[in-house]
């Protein structure tokens, strides 16, 4: 049943805003990163570490600002689709359990985040070719391990996906989940660069993708996996116990 529900949730995305945002949010990051870069003088492009800087700028912009906002937005939209249309009444009177539905929606939200990460990779790569065509750049465009970095970002954002999804599932009004998302994004600026980042799940993606030391990146991965597991159990249990605003 879980797979049927997941397929249906995916099917319901047709002609919807979450699908558009999957491309729009990464596009904004790439447009901003590349746009700022193209304004610099030619000397900035000639540096040997130019490409590493290029990719890390995009990753940082993504993990610092856009990803937490995107997660808040996409989970609010996916659950809002049911709240807004009164569709909980439809879904919960069909032979499915609230927990199956909760899990399918969580999986879809995470799938959207993975899709957005992929889109960021593709769009940033396209922009890299554009930069190379317009400016005198050094060789080694793809020397940076982008794919593993994006995979780590996608993995470590799972706790945030679950927190935002649980909030959006529980509350029909999207203001609370969005406020949490925006507030947490501000929090990354403060906590992300401090020793307390381990207590703040919104920092895990930043640390996993942009952490300076190998140990930090690995710790972010381990923490994210552990916290995600606990959250998955707790939020799924709550979804079956509590009552959705129908």
């Amino acid at each position, binding site marked *: 049943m879980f797979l049927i529900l997941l397929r249906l949730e995916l*099917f*319901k995305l047709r002609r919807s805003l979450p699908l558009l945002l999957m491309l729009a949010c990464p596009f904004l990051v790439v447009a901003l990163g590349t746009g700022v870069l193209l304004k610099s003088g030619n000397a900035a492009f000639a540096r040997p570490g130019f490409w590493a800087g290029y990719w890390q700028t995009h990753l940082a912009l993504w993990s610092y600002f856009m990803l937490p906002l995107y997660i808040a937005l996409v989970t609010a939209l996916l659950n809002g689709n049911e709240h807004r*249309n009164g569709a909980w*009444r439809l879904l919960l*009177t069909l*032979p*499915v359990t609230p927990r199956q539905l909760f899990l399918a929606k969580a999986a879809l939200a995470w799938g959207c985040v993975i899709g957005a990460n992929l889109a960021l990779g593709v769009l940033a790569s396209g922009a890299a070719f554009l930069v190379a065509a317009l400016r005198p750049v050094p060789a080694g465009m793809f020397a940076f391990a982008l794919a593993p970095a994006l995979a780590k970002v996608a993995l470590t954002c799972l706790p945030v996906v679950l927190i935002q999804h649980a909030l959006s599932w529980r509350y029909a009004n999207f203001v609370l989940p969005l406020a949490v998302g925006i507030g947490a994004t501000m929090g990354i600026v403060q906590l992300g660069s401090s020793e307390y980042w381990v207590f703040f799940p919104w920092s895990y993606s930043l640390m996993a993708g942009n952490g300076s030391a190998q140990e930090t990146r690995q710790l972010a991965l381990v923490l994210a996996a552990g916290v995600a597991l606990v959250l998955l159990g707790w939020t799924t249990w709550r979804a079956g116990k509590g009552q959705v605003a129908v």
Partner: protein
Amino acid sequence: MEPVIELRKVSKRFGGRTVLRELDLCVPPRSVFGFLGNNGAGKSTTIRLITGLLQADGGQVLVGGRDLRSHRIEILREIGCIVEAPALYPNLTAPEFLRIGCAIKRLPRREIGRVLELVKLADAGKTRIAHFSLGMKQRLALAHALLGQPRLLVLDEPTNGLDPHGILDMRTLLRALPEAGDCTVFVSSHQLDEVEKMATHVALLRDGVLASQGRVDALTALQAGVLDMEIGDAGHAAAVLAAHDYEVRLLGQRRLEVYRVERTQLDVVHAALVHAGVRLFQSTYRQPTLEQWFLRATAGATPETPCS
């Protein structure tokens, strides 16, 4: 025969407010069951309890003889419902929307075409639901409820937003369902004339308590009607009937109306007039409508009727 829906002493509270108080209800199989009550009487809460959207604080909800708490999935497989307004996804088309119920109930895709035909939406094709009229949305919600030929249809105000043709179609369809197969229809509605034309049984909820329940014809027959008479001397007749404690209104020298006459008393009224030498030309008895019954019952005038 075992009731399709049976509520035993069901209670439900929201915060400090008791919405349902030890409600007993039984819906016979293959009936069209009209569920009536004023706003806030507890109709929607009852429907939410029957469809598993809410859990009762006390008592037991049985559907098809099975407890809803322990057999929820099994029961929901056999139910089709519309709870409150139609819940639809505006970004999908009608066939796309019906795929949801089809997939979850594991039904073949041809079922989509069948139900769209039934509700006359087969030509809605590629139009997105966002562009549907309220009536089309209502019919699509009904199509979704009809997927898989459910044994029980629970419909909350199904004729809302329908034009007269749509109402007629809906009535014809719902009346035909119990006759065509093993289907029971449970309808809540404010449109009493519709319920009267459609339902075989009714129940009336008043302040969270069952006020009355039974067959439509039996319930309305319990109520006193109006006797409209054309007679030789209305003044003399009025005096005779007043002496028998009947409430009379003169409408002319040869016409009067007698109120609160039960069908079983008709012979007594006529005999009294004949014995008093009043010439009788025409006598018409008007049976109370469901609406009149409803208005009297919600005003607290109707005694409880046993579940039959």
